[in-house]
């Protein structure tokens, strides 16, 4: 995995330069952009990092960038900077999932902490996303018949009932169940249920857990 990058977006050249100096001096890898559109055009989707963005910019503001990033497959945590914080935009930014909202002259420690937190969050979210991808891949290996059986198991049906529902022998059901457990790498029905939930297969409403 490549080194995480702090992307700084600000239309004010001198501030952009000063900001990148401080972050580099503090040991971060930094890239600067004078507009949000520049950043969107140049970013590599799956590269880790975070964005430090000026709230007020002509044409494409920090909040607009937040909206645009939210639709991407790999969103980056956003850290807002502003000359003068007003409540309305703070609320909007935080509601949109911003990592933090800082004044331009916030203490250095607060700023660096926030960048650290944003990078850590990105790493965490990235790991989470790759785990989910892996689970999805595991579910891909299950055959259509096994998927039918899995659905009924998650509804809490007993082997005998499942055999009746599908018109097959109870022993065949047991073979399918074993194969499913092996393919998904789980040992118990409880673990199976949790994994299925993670993969987006919740039990149908109304059913009860055995």
């Amino acid at each position, binding site marked *: 995995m490549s080194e995480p990058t702090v992307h700084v977006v600000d*239309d*004010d050249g*001198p*501030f952009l*330069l*000063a*900001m990148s*100096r*401080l972050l*580099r*001096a*503090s040991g971060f890898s930094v890239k600067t952009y004078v507009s949000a559109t520049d950043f969107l055009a140049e970013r590599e989707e799956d590269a880790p990092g975070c964005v430090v963005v000026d709230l*007020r*910019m*002509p*044409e494409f*503001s920090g909040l607009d960038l937040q909206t645009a990033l939210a639709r991407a497959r790999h969103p980056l945590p956003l850290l807002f*900077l*502003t*000359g*003068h914080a*007003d409540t309305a935009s703070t609320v909007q930014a935080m509601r949109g999932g911003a990592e933090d909202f800082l*004044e*331009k*002259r916030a203490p*250095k420690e607060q700023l660096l902490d926030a960048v650290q937190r944003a990078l850590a969050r990105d790493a965490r979210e990235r790991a989470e996303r790759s785990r989910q991808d892996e689970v999805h891949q595991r579910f891909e290996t299950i055959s259509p018949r096994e998927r039918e059986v899995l659905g009924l198991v998650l509804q809490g049906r007993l082997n005998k009932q499942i055999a009746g529902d599908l018109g097959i022998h109870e022993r065949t059901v047991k073979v399918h169940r074993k194969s499913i457990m092996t393919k998904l790498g789980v040992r118990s029905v409880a673990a199976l249920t949790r994994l299925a939930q993670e993969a987006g297969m919740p039990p149908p409403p109304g059913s009860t857990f055995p």
Partner: protein
Amino acid sequence: MSPVTIVYSMIGGVCFTLAAVHLPVWLRNREARASLAFAVAAICSGAIACGELLMLTAATPAEYVAAQKWNHVPIALLLVALAAFGYHYLRAGRLWLALLGIGVRLVALAINFGIGENLNFLEVTALGRVPYMGEEVAVAIGVRNPWLVLTQLDTFVLMLFFADASVTAWRHGRRTEALLVGGSLTVFMLASAGRSMLVFWAGVQMPSMVSLFSLGVMLVTGYALSMDLLRARQLADELSERELQATLAAEAANLGTWTRDIANGTVQVSKKWRELFGFAPGEPLTLPSLLQRIHVDDRAAFDHRLMQAARDGGDYHIELRLVLPDEKTRWIAASGRVAFDARGRALRTRGACIDITARKRQERETLRLRQDIAHVGRVSVMGQLASALAHEINQPLGAILRNAEAAAIFLQDPSPDLAEITAILEDIRKDDQRAGAVIDRMRTLLRRQEVAMTELDLSQVLGDVATLVGPDAAARHVAMQLVVAPGLPPVHGDRVQLQQVLLNLILNAMDALRSEGDRHRTVAVTARREGPETLEISVADTGCGIPAAQIDRVFDPFFTTKTTGIGMGLSISRSIVETHGGRLWAENNAVRGATFRFTLPVAAWA
């Protein structure tokens, strides 16, 4: 004494008396030519009466002939005088007819002294006697002079002249004059011609009686003329009554009135005027002494306006300061009119003045109040701008902070990159200046100051304001367009006040865009030349426009559609623009949004 002697003497007496009444009228007023003509006619009539009396009482043919001969002189003069009288009194008639009649009569007068005994007779052989007024009077018997027919001709021509003049006067609405004067003159001519023809053609023996007819004319026309004098007297009474009323009104209104005769330089003034200008009653007045009272700074302007009025005609109105003998200053408003004679020469100046010191004081107070309000308004505008300015100031301050922090970290390195640190220090210096410039701009805007009118480059003023609202516009996603026509002349104005007007209009325009989608958020500021002496600045937005019912009300004080506004911005802006000699108004755009426009006079014209 015989009745004839009595009657003809009385005719003469009456005629001379009438002349004595009307001649002085002409002597007093040389314009009264009708009075002169009437007086001459009356004198002639009196003379004719005397001549005829001599004829009627003549003892020998020689006496008769001589009297008759010389009597033709006053008769001719009488006709001239009557023609002149009719012409002037009726203010009508064909001059050539009158001249033709008089010409013929003068020819007859020459014949009177050249051919035969006189105009009537080639030769008189004897005197006859005819009964007249209860006694016997003389008539001549002999060979008639055929040239006498000329007198009938000219009498006929003059009769035509009078008849024509009467009809014209009647048509012009002067009916009494036409009937009385024109009618009697015409009848007189008709009677004279008729009598003459009876004597000449039918050989009727008749005593001479021209003066009898002319007496009638004199009485009738004298009556009309006296009526005129009476009316003139009434008019004079009315005039003095009016003058009295005017004086009363002027005094009630505290108006001081003055009249200056331009030809002889005398100045006549009312009592109130003396009070206003601080002249004691009876103190002699001349134009220089009057000008001396006017404040030095206003003297040239007053002189100029007066000269201008005298040259171009018409009225003048000026407000100026007087410095009274006690050194006090008094403001007056002076109005007046220059009167001209028929040839367009300035005759006299009439004027009225009123004390406006109190009003001026009030105006000054109002101006001060308005400046206070403008200050408040500016402060509230600044409130709206505060967030934008904080952003602009925090930008360089933030950069300084981050640079300093970075430099501190770099210096911890055992072998610090000195080139980098030098660059950082240079950047810190620049950012400090940047922050200072923002503060200076804000201070200029906030400072409360008297109006300082200077020559301003409009593009610079507009540029400053655009820079000021730039961050705010960016934050609100508004595209600002600034179009200044090249080569605009400077305007005369107060930089801060004009900036305030522009700020107000631009911030309003941006407010109007609040509910619009991003695509339509545009504010266009345009400056262009509107006329030889005017520039026009417009601020156009692409917002929702102004409801038609409110377009006239937006400039009212305390009118606002915003939840946070106090509704003073446009009202103050308008008063500022008007102080600058311009106009500020609003109109809705054809497609979308509204445009606020104001004009400013070009500096050279202000």
